[in-house]
């Protein structure tokens, strides 16, 4: 305990971490005097939920046209010329509720970089050619990348659309084909004018900057128009009746499956933390810790991996970590079954749900609880090894109105008991009502098998353990209560159209 206190004391000396209000501007600072890098994150409280009907994709296209555009006298091309020798980068990520612009630069070029980075946000050129290029890129993402060349992403987005029917979360963040086609440059300028206001941005900076820059940022960003757009009130997602299935039909060699249901829990809720432990035990992303990974891949070799989540999870690049700054007021529980051979798609779905039922019924043992709790406390400390990621988590904490998330994980998990975890599982997770999205070539066959609860026996090239075959004998007949009116087959070319 003594060690811990000493080190906590050291922390205070090393970092100055501020959340300040400056002329109605919200700042988060992480000042590290000796660090030669500087990371910026400018978070705008605007997301796909702000897209007007018929212009789905407006938020994304606005963000793209700003980040991949020009400012003042500098065209997009000029900016690439200037940034290039510094290896500095500017990028944008947009989600349902927020859009975040990130910048990374060595402090050798901080001042010049900041002028361009802030200029893009405060004085965007909105050139017609940048607008056109970014619009085409978004359209190609929907028409070609999602529909044609990435079945895993197609499955995940199909689930989101299906799960949030008639809800502001019910579109791809990039929009729809028809929505994007209807958007004009004038629409983009208006969206910028309405959403990029002083009270609607949150400015984050981390690294070896000097304090004069903070003053300058305060003055510069104060030039944004005042006001804060009214936050859209989110309705409750539509109730789900039994298991509803969306089958996206396309020629492919394996079936990609995502399934889930909305939950009434976010990081602001006490129950998020016991659910975090439960979820890690059940399906921690890309590890062999999770029951799903062990059962589907480890014991049966059905696919590359199967994981579960209690909030929207976007992987940060090639790492195993979650991308920061994709917060949401409403979250969902999901299971991601990576592509399985068509012949085992029914069995794989059954096995995942059988294991979910087992989790809900039996929960974790004391030993499983302790091992998973300790893992999560330690592992979460690895989530913030870079400046930009730490800054992102600090800003997410501000968005949710909680203490610093990484600290909060430790604080909350240390208080938990196994009973807390098992109660939270029973309160929030279930197997009766959910949405399933599957991308497969054998749509009709899969539909009939689901509706008829056709047995799905499985065979292996190896002699597997008796415990595996014994469970398989149960799982092959595991009854899924499919809603017969809600098994939809949609040809892939119709997805994301309107």
């Amino acid at each position, binding site marked *: *305990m003594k*060690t*811990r206190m000493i*080190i*906590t004391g050291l922390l205070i000396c*090393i970092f100055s971490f501020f959340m300040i209000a400056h002329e109605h501007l919200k700042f988060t600072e*992480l000042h590290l005097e000796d660090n030669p*890098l500087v990371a910026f994150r400018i978070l705008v409280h605007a997301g796909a939920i702000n897209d007007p009907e018929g212009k789905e994709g407006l938020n994304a296209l606005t963000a793209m046209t700003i980040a991949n555009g020009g400012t003042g006298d500098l065209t*997009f*091309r000029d900016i*690439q*010329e200037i940034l*290039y*020798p510094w*290896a*500095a980068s500017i990028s944008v990520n947009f989600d349902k509720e927020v859009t975040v612009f990130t910048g*990374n630069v*060595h402090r050798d070029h901080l001042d010049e970089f900041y002028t361009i980075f802030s200029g893009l946000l405060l004085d965007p050129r909105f050139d017609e050619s940048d607008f*056109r*290029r970014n619009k085409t890129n978004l359209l*190609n993402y929907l028409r*070609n990348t999602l529909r*044609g*060349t*990435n*079945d*895993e992403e197609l499955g995940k987005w199909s689930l989101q659309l299906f799960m949030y029917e008639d809800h502001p979360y019910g579109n791809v963040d990039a929009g729809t084909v028809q929505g994007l086609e209807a958007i004009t440059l004038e629409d983009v300028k208006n969206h910028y004018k309405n959403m990029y206001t002083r009270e609607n941005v949150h400015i984050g900076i*981390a690294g070896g900057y000097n304090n004069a820059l903070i003053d300058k940022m305060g003055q510069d960003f104060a030039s944004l128009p005042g006001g804060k757009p009214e936050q859209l009130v989110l309705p409750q997602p539509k109730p789900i009746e039994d298991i509803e299935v969306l089958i996206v039909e396309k020629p*492919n*060699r*394996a079936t*990609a499956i995502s399934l889930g249901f909305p939950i009434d829990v976010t990081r602001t809720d006490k129950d998020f933390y016991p659910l975090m432990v439960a979820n890690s035990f059940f399906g921690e992303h890309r*590890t062999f*810790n999770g029951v799903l990974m062990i059962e589907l*891949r480890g014991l*049966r*070799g*059905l*696919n*590359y991996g199967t994981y579960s989540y209690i909030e929207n999870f976007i992987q940060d690049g090639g790492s*195993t970590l979650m991308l920061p700054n994709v917060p949401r007021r409403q979250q969902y529980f999901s299971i991601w079954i990576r592509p399985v*051979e068509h012949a085992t798609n029914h069995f794989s779905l059954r096995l995942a749900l059988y294991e979910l039922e087992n989790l809900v019924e039996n929960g974790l043992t004391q030993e499983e609880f302790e*091992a*998973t709790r*300790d*893992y*999560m406390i*330690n*592992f*979460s*400390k*690895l989530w913030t*090894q*870079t*400046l930009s990621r730490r800054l992102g988590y600090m800003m997410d904490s501000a968005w949710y109105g909680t203490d610093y998330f990484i600290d909060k994980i430790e604080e909350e998990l240390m208080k938990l008991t196994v009973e807390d975890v098992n109660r939270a599982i029973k309160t929030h997770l279930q197997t009766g009502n959910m949405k399933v999205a599957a991308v497969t070539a054998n749509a009709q066959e899969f539909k009939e098998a689901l509706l008829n609860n056709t047995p799905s026996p499985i065979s*292996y*090239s*190896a*002699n597997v353990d008796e415990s595996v075959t014994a469970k398989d004998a149960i799982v092959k007949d595991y009854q899924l209560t499919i809603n017969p009116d809600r098994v939809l087959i949609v040809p892939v*070319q119709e997805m994301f159209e309107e």
Partner: protein
Amino acid sequence: MEDTVLIKLSIIYLAIVSMCMLPAQSNDAVFPFPVHQSVLDNGLTVISIPFDSPGIIAYYTVVRTGSRNEVEEGLSGFAHFFEHMMFRGTEQYSAEEYNEVLKRLGADHNAFTTDDWTGYHIVASADALEEVVKIESDRFMNLKYSVEDFKTEAGAILGEYNMNAANPLRQMFERIREMAFTEHTYGHTTLGYLEDIKDMPNQFDYSLTFFDRYYRPEYCTIIVAGDVQHDRLTQLAQKYYSGWEPGTWTVDIPEEPPQTEEKRSHMTWGSATLPHLMIGYRVPEFDETNIDLPALNIIGQLLFARNAPLFQKLVVDEQLVDFVSGGYTDRRDPYLFTIMSRIKNIDNMGRVEQEIYDAIEDLKNNQIAPARLDEIKSFLRYSFAMSLNTASSVARTVSQFIQLTGDFNTVNKLFDLYDSVTPEDVQRVARKYFTPATRSVVTLAQEEIQQ
């Protein structure tokens, strides 16, 4: 139990942001961290790189074996398959127990396979070093799995193939390598051919041979970056790895004969996609003394950086493609300078290909301005320095050079070589390697096209 957890947590807590340094002068070493090296009696090299990540270490095991070593017919993809088998346990630690140890430590761990090497990595708290050395040495020395586990894991490999199967670029890489390399093992991808993957469950005996050949100290290097003391690391390596017997296997990789004429192929794609173009030019193997390689990398920047005229023309001005990229990547044997593009309209496929060739011809015919060369050198130095921002990225960078040459000093030698590249070198190298006779071209579209 709880005290131990708390202490580990507290130590890790400090390791939040690490630093990267850029040399003040261009002639300073580009890799700014001290590197310590020891070699055990059995030939195992142990390297440590102290780096400012208090409480955290990144532990890499580099095996200088990849799909390049898959010389036997019908066994493509085996190095990658074997990487999976390394997680299947030993007599001392079953697969579950191995995972439990890392779970208790809160470690982030995984592995990957490339053409030339296989990397196993763990990021964990620094005070877990001995436990990490213990479990890693155990599996590298004493791996033991059943035939049943072997066959089950083959299913996961097929799953990995399946998850990539919808990506046209993956299929195009398979095709272009097959065309460009008729003898050398670069002719197949790291994942391997589908028919070989399907046959993997039958290759249990070969897997034992593979382990016996390559998972030996002379093929491996331990690299630890972060909060680590070299004496302590060496002591632990001595304790846990010294019983590892060296092997005798050396592999003869078939040499690829020179390519003497252009090769072309078209692939039709079964679902929605924009047309794709992939071009590969034969280029030499990595050699830290060969100035042609930095020059090739610079040519990659001249053609495809976001401020390059070709990029600007195709992506920004005329908007014919939504991406165009390419470049040289270090390989232990002669490989390809690869160019990729996704074209918005199939009618422009030929035009885009010609634009790329015209830009290459321009480099052959006109020397680049020295100022442009300086900008590229600046970009390469800054991007390299800025990438060294975690213990893991530092360990991985050293691993990359160790696998290429076995010598970590290669990184600084290489950047010295970059400094000496002149506009004349760039022109000479463009003329030498970018010829129609040494190029392979793959196109992909929903439609058939006229070749």
